[in-house]
């Protein structure tokens, strides 16, 4: 059925019809077909399950539903059996027959495919697994319920209902005010109140009424996949948010929509393209949407992949076909942005929050999160935030929690604590220009303002957990280097400033740090922040400054004692053989690329420091703990 939906009434009728057709007791096997699970074999698994169902003649009764990311990518491919909601993890194509033969009956469970925690306890339902139990899925909630390539699935769970309500019952100004009252703040980095941005863009003069409505799906932070998961798993929620935004910001003028998405996201691009096409077929994009008189369509613009292209002015330059370099924003983009027209840019996750706020109301939304936004949209952080939890935790993946959840809850309750029984050292939040927070701040409630106050930031929601084997100077070195390479290179302060910060940290890591280096780093950081044009330069020293603030002693040790306590910095470590443990197995001597280790079988080996290049191979290969690094 692809007849266009012309009014809000028709939309409700369509939804009711879809819901009536769907039997809630119908058996559905949903397979996560997100990027992570695909990489671990979800496509093959899907084929195998289909094959097994056909073989048993069950392919008509049981539906297979490929979905977007469920968040727990580490345990993928994931399979959820509906309506029981039994969750199977790390499912292989070889398990397909067993699932079809022994998993479909009333109360049947295949124990060996259930999730087990570190203590060996099994959990049957998704909602019971600790990783999910402590989360609050609002934006990700529908990811397991819908096939992102089918608009009917989204309509059946109430999709586009918020849009219908807005178009039928609200004035554009009222929608702006609602988003402002909800305290929705931008999820792409800055945390700017979306409602305020919308109002300003609406008020900005535009001679021909054109206003650009853009979705920032550049997601350049290495390791981040919040936005791609939303676009892959529930693209219509983003589109619905944008149409509501178009109405609020530009109606009765001429809104024009863009999604700026990185080319390295082929799956997200495809899902978005399908979703936009289907929305168009149904009349939810295009002319006179739901009889409102508003015309609005969305174009996909594929970005070149540079981190800096995610910055608002660089992004707009890139859409216009110029080099993605930021420009001065003394005239704001809401007034003169893309093609010098008033332009409203929001992040993917920001847009996805919009239908939620309309559907459930400001009161419900402001109950979630921190602070008080009743008379100031900056007064708190409301709603949930999705984080990409990675690093040295037991459960890595996508995590959606209410604003104000503590770092401890995220890392320990959801993340299952540090893996390998090691000790927690720091958590890096906010992407490359975020900061590193120490153990003493584990109880910090994660929201925009508290993270900033602590010297880090929300960023787009990257969260990297580090254990005692991480050197904090090395961490700063890594991020500063990344930013130096990703700077557009326009400002001397950013390009040369980061080059020199990088050189000084390199020198410290190589054991050549000097007295005064820390002070020079601090002084130069201030100049980089104050003297640079865009937020990349203005925030770039964060990883350095936050590690200096919380782990200063590590810098001092590197410089004064020529010691790296985590034994990471190659210029500062030595390898040696512990005579008591060495039984002369000869493996280290054989594997050492520099022939720095000598010895005869069954006798203690000797390591010649002058030849050693500190590659660490001997440490890795020794089975008797006889190689010591310090």
């Amino acid at each position, binding site marked *: 059925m692809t007849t266009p939906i012309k009014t809000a009434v028709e939309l409700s009728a369509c939804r009711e019809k879809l819901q009536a057709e769907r039997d809630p007791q119908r058996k559905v096997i949903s397979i996560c077909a997100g990027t992570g699970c695909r990489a671990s074999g979800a496509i093959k698994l899907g084929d195998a399950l289909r094959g097994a169902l056909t073989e048993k003649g069950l392919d008509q009764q049981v539906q297979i539903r490929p979905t977007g990311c469920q968040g727990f990518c580490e345990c993928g491919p994931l399979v959820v059996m509906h309506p029981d909601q039994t969750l199977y993890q790390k499912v292989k194509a070889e398990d397909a027959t067993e699932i079809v033969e022994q998993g479909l009956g009333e109360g049947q469970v295949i124990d060996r495919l259930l999730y087990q925690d570190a203590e060996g306890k099994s959990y049957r339902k998704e909602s019971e697994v600790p990783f999910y139990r402590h989360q609050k899925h609002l934006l990700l909630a529908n990811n397991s319920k819908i096939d992102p390539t089918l608009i009917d699935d989204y309509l059946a769970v109430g999709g586009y209902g918020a849009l219908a309500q807005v178009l039928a019952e609200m004035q554009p100004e009222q929608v702006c005010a609602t988003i402002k009252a909800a305290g929705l703040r931008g999820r792409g980095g800055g945390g700017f109140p979306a409602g305020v941005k919308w109002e300003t863009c609406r008020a900005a003069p535009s001679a021909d009424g054109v206003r650009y409505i853009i979705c920032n799906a550049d997601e350049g932070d290495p390791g981040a996949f919040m936005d791609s998961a939303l676009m892959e798993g529930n693209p219509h929620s983003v589109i619905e948010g944008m149409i509501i935004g178009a109405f609020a910001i530009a109606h009765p003028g001429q809104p024009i929509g863009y999604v700026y998405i990185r080319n390295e996201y082929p799956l997200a691009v495809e899902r978005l393209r399908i979703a936009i096409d289907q929305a168009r077929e149904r009349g939810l994009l295009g002319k006179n949407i739901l009889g409102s008189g508003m015309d609005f369509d969305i174009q996909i613009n594929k970005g070149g992949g540079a981190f800096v292209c995610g910055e608002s002015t660089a992004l707009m330059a890139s859409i216009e076909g110029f080099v993605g370099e930021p420009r001065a924003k003394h005239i704001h983009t809401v007034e003169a942005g893309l093609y010098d027209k008033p332009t409203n840019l929001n992040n993917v996750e920001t847009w996805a929050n919009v239908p939620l706020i309309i559907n459930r109301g400001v009161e419900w939304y402001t109950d979630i999160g921190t602070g008080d936004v009743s008379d100031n949209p900056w007064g708190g952080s409301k709603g949930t935030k999705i984080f990409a939890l990675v690093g040295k935790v037991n459960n890595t993946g996508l995590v959606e929690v209410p604003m104000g959840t503590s770092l401890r809850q995220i890392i320990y309750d959801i993340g299952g604590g540090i893996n390998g029984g090691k000790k927690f050292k720091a958590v890096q939040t906010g992407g490359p220009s975020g900061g590193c927070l120490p153990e003493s701040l584990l109880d910090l409630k994660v929201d925009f303002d508290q993270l900033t106050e602590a010297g880090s930031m929300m960023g787009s929601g990257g969260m990297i957990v580090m254990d005692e084997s991480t050197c904090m100077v090395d961490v700063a070195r890594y991020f500063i280097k990344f930013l130096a390479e990703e700077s557009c290179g326009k400002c001397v302060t950013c390009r040369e400033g980061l*080059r020199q910060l990088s050189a000084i940290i390199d020198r410290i890591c190589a054991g050549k740090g000097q007295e005064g280096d820390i002070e020079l780093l601090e002084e130069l950081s201030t100049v980089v922040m104050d003297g640079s*044009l865009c937020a990349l330069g203005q925030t770039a020293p964060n990883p350095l400054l936050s590690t200096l603030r919380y782990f200063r002693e590590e810098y001092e040790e590197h410089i004064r004692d020529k010691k790296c306590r985590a034994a990471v910095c190659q210029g500062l470590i030595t390898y040696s053989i512990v005579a008591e443990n060495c039984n002369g197995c000869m493996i280290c001597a054989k594997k050492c690329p520099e022939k720095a280790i000598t010895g005869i079988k069954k006798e203690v080996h000797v390591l010649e420091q002058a030849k050693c290049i500190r590659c660490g191979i001997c440490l890795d290969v020794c089975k008797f703990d006889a190689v010591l690094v310090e």
Partner: protein
Amino acid sequence: MAVQDEQKVSFQIEGRSYQGIREESLLGALRRYGYEVPSLCYHEAVSPYGACRLCLVEVQKGKRRKLTTSCNYPVLEGIEVFLDTEKVVSTRKMVLQLLLAQAPEARSVRELAEEYGVTDTPFKKDEGNACISCGLCARVCKEIVGADAIGFAGRGLGKRMVSPYDETNQACIGCAACVVVCPTDCIGLKEENGIRSIERWHRDLPMKNCKVCERPFAPTFQLNHFADQIGVEKSHFDTCPNCR
């Protein structure tokens, strides 16, 4: 061009009131009123770029006061501009130290640094380099000459001013406007045996000899380009400007 009244705005510099043109470059206005502000990447004939970060000032707009470059700051109603504040001076000094490290060969940088009492840099020097990636050459080539023959390649640490793919570009007419405008004299121009060479852009162009004095005066390619542009016979440029 007469400035219409509605384009005029009043603003303050160091507590004194001025009338400026709405959205003109603040640096341009400052210089017109006789204030001295250093710069290396600004030229009033082309659009500002904001690369060298030397033209820093502090601007108060409403409640917010911030450090900003003045070349790409638009003159707006009611702004208050402060020149050599402590913050401006200390930041500028370190910018100069960064430039000294990037382009130790550039005389203009060394001289400017000295003016601000900066004689050495604590940073690692890129010996032998003089280009400060200010982008003036490319802006002049594009906006004034209309050739758009050179541009930046790469970003971040790898950003360099080059001809496309660092190869000969037929779009370069050899006019040498880039050479003249380069603040650090790092492009280099050679005229030998009737050939003008700009090695940095890999461009060698035969020069035309003046019909009168018989001296080579400009690349034939450039003169033909100009003749086409303004729609005159190519013979129009047979004599050099001195003999014309």
